[in-house]
């Protein structure tokens, strides 16, 4: 945290996007997290992704629960809509907001405590409903705000700052999401923006629930020797499996890929993701194989990263429920609230 705000001065050569905005226009307030917190890097990656996607800031809603991670929506896109909800209840608020207005981009930011302990049920059902949103878990394996107790994502054998070992098995949000039928599951690392930024862009553009589990070290309570969520441990056991390049609609694929290892996937809005297999044995479209692979490598203490599973064919919440295309705030009052007679005739059908 800093006492002075980030100066408004910018590099004179700062590029502008299609909306005429610079990356600085996507920033938020000054972070009050600990110096060196991985979450601040994720914030910066979100700012970069929104800038590159040319998102109008007022067309985005950022949602969060409780925890260090859930403070971060204050630090990016200060001109977007936001809702900081009760602990673990961000998924239902996001579901409600999305149900009312499908025209916004929804980004939920949560942590391992918020999503995997108190909010686990909410998290699972948002996936099941396939709410069209990007759901980011900033995963550091500890409860930072309450001084470093193990969270539900702490690995067996990982040591707390004072030395005690975690004995309970972790919940892996990626394995769980794939098992629950999520159509976009990725893992990344706050210290690797080259991987993270395109994943965020693809996740925002994915039609349906997109989960990105970001290993985001807690510098204060979980960056010591013996921790399995430290910067050092993550880098040592980093295992990129599938790199995903996001290609906006109508843009050409410019990068050169070796034959056989590049795999373009077209998203709902016409944009593309080019998947680049770093690990040749991995198939990110085979659900059973993906779970098996994750299981196998996590047993070997490897942190598999990249776009782990993708399925663009699943209908999202509005398609499943055949809801109106129009945001509820745009519907004429008579249609939104057709009156007592309409209610009575509806009730009549159930008598």
């Amino acid at each position: 945290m800093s006492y002075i705000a980030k100066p408004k001065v910018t590099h004179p050569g700062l590029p502008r996007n299609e909306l005429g905005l610079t990356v600085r226009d996507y920033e938020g307030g000054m972070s009050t997290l600990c110096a060196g917190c991985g979450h601040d890097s994720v914030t910066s990656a979100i700012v970069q992704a929104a800038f590159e996607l040319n998102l109008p800031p007022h067309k985005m809603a950022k949602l969060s629960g409780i925890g260090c991670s859930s403070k971060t929506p204050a630090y990016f896109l200060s001109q977007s809509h936001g809702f900081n909800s009760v602990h673990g209840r961000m998924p239902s608020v996001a579901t409600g907001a999305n149900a009312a207005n499908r025209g916004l981009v929804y980004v939920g930011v949560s942590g391992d405590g918020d999503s995997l302990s108190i909010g686990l049920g909410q998290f699972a059902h948002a996936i099941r409903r396939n709410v069209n949103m990007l759901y980011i878990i900033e995963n550091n394996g500890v409860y930072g705000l309450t001084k470093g107790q193990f969270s539900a994502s702490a690995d067996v054998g990982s040591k707390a700052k004072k030395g005690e070992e975690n004995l309970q098995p972790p919940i892996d949000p990626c394995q769980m999401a794939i098992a629950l039928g999520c159509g976009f599951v990725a893992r990344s690392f706050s210290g690797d923006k080259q991987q993270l930024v395109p994943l965020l862009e693809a996740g925002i553009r994915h039609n349906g629930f997109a989960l990105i589990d970001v290993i985001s070290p807690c510098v204060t309570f979980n960056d010591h020797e013996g921790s399995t969520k430290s910067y050092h441990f993550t880098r040592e056991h980093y295992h990129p499996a599938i790199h995903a390049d996001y290609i906006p609609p109508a843009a050409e694929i410019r990068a050169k890929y070796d034959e056989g290892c590049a795999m373009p996937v077209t998203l709902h809005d016409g944009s593309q993701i080019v998947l680049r297999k770093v690990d040749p044995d991995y198939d990110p479209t085979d659900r059973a194989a993906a779970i098996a692979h994750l299981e196998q490598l996590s047993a070997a203490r490897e942190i598999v990263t990249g776009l782990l599973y993708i399925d663009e064919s699943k209908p999202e919440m509005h398609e499943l429920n055949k809801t109106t295309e129009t945001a509820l705030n745009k519907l004429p009052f008579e249609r939104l609230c057709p009156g007592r007679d309409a209610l009575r005739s509806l009730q009549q059908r159930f008598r």
Partner: protein
Amino acid sequence: MKPTDISNPDYFHRVVDCQWACPAHTDVPGYIRLIAQGRFTDAYMLNRKSNVFPGILGRVCDRPCEPACRRGRVDEKPVAICRLKRVAADNREDVRDRLPKIPQQKNGKRVALVGAGCASLAVANDLMPLGYECVMFEALDKPGGLMRSNIPAFRLPVEVLDEEINMILDMGVDLRLNTPITSMKALLEEDYDAVFVGTGAPKGKNLEIPGRYDDPEHVHIGIEWLESVAFGHIDKIGERVLIIGVGNTAMDCCRTSLRLGAKDVKVMARKPRGFFKASEWELEDAEEEHVEIVVNHSPKEFVVEDGKLVGMKFDLMEYDLDERGRITDSRVVGEEFLPCDDVVLAIGQENAFPWIERDIGIEFDKWDVPVVDRRTYESTRKGVFFGGDAAFGPENIIWAVEHAHQAAISIHKHCHGENVADRLPDGMHLTSTKMGIHEWSYSNDYEQAERMLVPHVGLAERFRRLDIEVELGFSAEQAAVEVERCLNCDIQTVFTAKLCIECDACIDVCPVDCLTITANGPEEELRGRLSAPAQNLEQPLYVSAELPQTGRVMVKDEDLCVHCGLCAERCPTGAWDMQEFTLYHPHVEDEIAPVAPDKVRKYGT
């Protein structure tokens, strides 16, 4: 790239653009912070240590620091460094008790100083406290040289000049006015241990075109004319005046003409505006007074009718420029006659030494300029030193002062039988400015304000007398804002690679995208793939050793860093620290009692 060697004082010195650009390496951010604290006398003394004449230079310095100022790259207009120097000088208290003490017991060495201009005065300033006996010879009846004779009083009031000159003369300099030296040979035969020549560049260039001598009364050589005005020998000029040349002397000539009764003053330039020698701010001041600057006119002929100058003929020029703005070709496209009553020639000046015999071991080169060593300022004759414009031709006061500092070291070494080339190197001291988790011992927030404008005396008022100072100096409120515009470039970002955990916090928070963690590579290629391309090749990159976790390197492009300290505030491991850089640039006093670099203190406390 190899890791940057930050133990070499030049690396961090270059980051302080103003101090690096200042010939005397004045600690600019240091004194600006003192002004910000209201410590005007301390700020004045810190200045005086490097540049000897803060009150004078705060008005008329050529300010090499300002075009170099980083603020000018970040925010278009540099900090008004020069005018802040004047704030310190105008608001200081009596400094007499802070000036060096002059020993009663002299060291038995006598030095002759030829000329009483800024160079000789600065040599005396350095040598008198060491017990030297300084004898200063001046041809005119007042000391000050060019500072008095060529700089008009409406830019530099006589009181300011006298006070700073007297600080030095009062050290006990044996000043001999109205004593021109006519023979170096004779001077050398007298009993001096060393001779310093600080006679300036007193010869104004002439313009040998037809008609030049047909009415010599009305064609003046700029610097001679300014001198006559300064000493009261000339007090009027015709209504229509043409100034030939567009350097700073021309600006002084045109503005002086307006104060002597001229109504229509034109400055005639041979080339387009981009090629003017005058400083931008001097051009602005002249144009504010409705001087017309006429471009692309090359003087051809003085037109004299019945023995009286009636005007001048000019060739109209046209130039071809290449893509970098350089002239590739020129041609005459016409001719124009401009009527006038007087012409002032301000096309340059030269040093001239008719009084130095050519057979006494002082070599002159093919341009008839003495051969002088660039480091020691010694001529080819041992014990004879040159400084100021006399050494390498016309520069400006701040250069002369630095020549004098260096020449004083040489004179001292010469007088004590030491090798003049064997000099103390520059040193530095770095002190952390960290006071607490988010507290630094400097004002690190970025001031958004634009450069303050110095208020001027109204146009009608200023022409009433020749010596009404046009610039009023900053008000207290203006100075308070202007000091905050300084980016504190001497508060260095110092990086310790082995502490870095590559969390990217510094990179994310940097407002001007200076920082990158990336794979190492050759400089040219590396410059292109930083967070923002590093395009100022003048500013070296700061490349760290390999980082412990990934073996990549931290690269900082110093070019646009605003020294806000957020990288260091956001660094969880203290790998970045904000450290105050103090340059140790030795003067002759350091030769007597060298200060250990870690004892160097900015504020003389």
